[in-house]
């Protein structure tokens, strides 16, 4: 074996497997589901192994100009998330009669998300992100309805325009360093940093660049929403966090934007009356926590991915998407239980994976930053209370499908198991604070939010505004980088 490859055993076969299987699935259409499960399991195992490995591994292919790969526990956490969410989605889809084409796209999007999580240069990242864009478009437009087509086209417009800005930024980094590696960002001119951050912010659904996300994630089919919100969105966040860890100045800007998006997302989410839109807006807010605390971002992404995927799968199987109607309709108890666990994990209840992630994320922040994120956490608790406090109806409800139950067992199991990764977060002070935040959120929901209704304008979500917003964001980013 090549001595370089010996450093990271198995990386090449593992990263090539999804693409190999993805394209050959069409030759064996009867085996589409088992093959897709093999891919998801391979990532599950690989991610778990990398998560427990102490030292980061670096691999440069083809020398200085070539592809750089870096794998550490941060990548491991995200690869594990990818494996878990994909596996849950596959279990969910097992009996829904999806065509082979659907599984091809799931496997390819899985592979390119994995590629994002191990790459450390701007061009590999670009290629992986664009493949994700194409595969996500094909998954969104799988129903072939006009609305699905429009949502998909809108997504491609926004993501492709952002990636063109990103490409210009990548070129400027190359011009300054004669290399596309992430590490060169520090020596790059301010316009390069602004352009690259803009592209990734848009891909990652952060702050006003992320206003495309609510419609896209809420109008996709249930399993696709779970996949997009659970793991694909992290493909935009991961490189930002990597850059923040390498270049501290970028980290400061991203922390600020993270707080902005945490507040913006919950500000919209608490007034939302549609379940899937609320979940999508909560994603916009949750990515802010990852950006604000780069060292814990992997762990946070893991717990958020599992909880959000579970919530999307459940929300798609409730009898209605409107909270007002749900109050009058029967909901199966098992869905109610799964919904409560996943929602409480996002709100940060001790005993569930979301608590140690949130506590560790808050630990190293400046006092004012912690205050902002605590406000966002109360907002999250209010938004999640909407799911937990749906009034109970005694009429019997139809049993949910077996695929959904299996997917939920996997995701809820992961939410509980994630506790083991952050045992040092369990202190009395942290526990009391988390309980206080949840109680405050619940009370605010019961006495204030539930009695009012507020229709926030959605004008910012129109295509022209989404694209035009990029100029504003670019100007703001440039100004932030220069000062």
């Amino acid at each position, binding site marked *: 074996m090549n001595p370089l490859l010996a450093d990271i055993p198995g990386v090449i076969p593992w990263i090539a497997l999804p693409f190999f299987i993805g394209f050959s699935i069409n030759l064996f259409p009867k085996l589409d589901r088992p093959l897709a499960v093999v891919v998801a399991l391979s990532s599950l195992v690989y991610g778990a192994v990398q998560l427990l490995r102490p030292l980061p591994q670096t691999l440069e292919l083809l020398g200085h100009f070539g592809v750089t790969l870096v794998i550490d526990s941060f990548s491991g956490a995200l690869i594990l998330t990818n494996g878990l969410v994909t596996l849950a989605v596959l279990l969910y889809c097992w009996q829904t009669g999806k065509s082979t084409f659907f599984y091809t796209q799931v496997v390819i999007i899985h592979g390119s998300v994995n590629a994002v999580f191990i790459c450390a240069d701007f061009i590999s990242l670009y290629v992986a992100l664009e493949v994700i864009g194409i595969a996500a478009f094909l998954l969104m437009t799988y129903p072939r309805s*006009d609305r699905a087509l429009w949502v998909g086209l809108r997504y*491609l417009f926004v993501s492709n325009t952002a990636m*063109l800005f990103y490409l210009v930024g990548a070129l400027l980094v190359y011009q300054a360093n004669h290399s596309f590696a992430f590490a060169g960002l520090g020596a790059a001119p301010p316009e390069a940093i602004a352009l690259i951050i803009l592209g990734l912010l848009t891909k990652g659904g952060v702050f006003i660049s992320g206003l495309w996300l609510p419609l896209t994630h809420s109008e996709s089919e249930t399993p696709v929403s779970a996949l997009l919100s659970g793991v694909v969105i992290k493909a935009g966040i991961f490189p930002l966090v990597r850059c923040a860890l390498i270049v501290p100045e970028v980290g400061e800007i991203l922390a600020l934007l993270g707080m902005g998006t945490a507040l913006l997302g919950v500000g919209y989410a608490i007034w939302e009356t549609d379940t899937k839109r609320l979940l999508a807006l909560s994603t916009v807010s949750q990515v802010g926590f990852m950006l604000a605390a780069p060292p814990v971002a992997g762990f946070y992404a893991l717990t958020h991915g599992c909880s959000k995927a579970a919530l999307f799968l459940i929300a798609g199987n409730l009898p209605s998407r409107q909270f007002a109607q749900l109050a009058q309709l029967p909901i199966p108890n098992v869905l109610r239980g799964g919904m409560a666990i996943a929602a409480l994990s996002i709100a940060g209840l001790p005993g569930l994976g979301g608590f140690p992630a949130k506590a560790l994320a808050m630990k190293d922040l400046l006092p004012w930053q912690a205050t902002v994120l605590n406000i966002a956490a109360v907002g999250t608790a209010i938004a999640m209370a909407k799911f937990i406090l749906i009034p109970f109806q005694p009429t019997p409800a139809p049993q949910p499908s077996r695929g959904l139950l299996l997917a939920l067992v996997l995701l809820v199991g992961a939410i509980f198991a994630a506790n083991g990764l952050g045992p040092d977060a369990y202190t009395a002070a942290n526990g009391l604070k988390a309980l206080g935040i949840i109680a405050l959120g619940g009370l605010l929901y019961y006495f204030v939010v539930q009695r009012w209704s507020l229709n926030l304008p959605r004008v910012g979500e129109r295509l022209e505004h989404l694209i035009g917003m990029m100029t504003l964001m670019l100007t703001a980013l440039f100004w932030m980088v220069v000062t």
Partner: protein
Amino acid sequence: MSVLEAYIFATLLLGFFGIIFKKNLMMKIIAMDVMSTGVIAYYVLIAARGGFFTPIATGATPGPYADPVPQAVILTAIVIGFSIQALMLVGVMKLARNNPTLETDQIEINNTP
């Protein structure tokens, strides 16, 4: 060189504003193509900063070489851009059945909940 750079940025910006201001969905896609042409030209220009000759190893050295790395990279980006373009056009073809004028505002109003 700086004149060329100015033209390239003009192309980029014209494409970008085309995406915003053109009303027809088809024209928006073409504007996006114009923008990506600007990006590709910029890569080629930066690659040619050091010299113009193709970096192929032959016996005689004709002069300073162009940098092959940005060119190799942009080749990938061209392929990706072209496939996305094709995909979007297929989407527009499908949408055109029920929205023959392809006015973006109208399509957006019809298809947003």
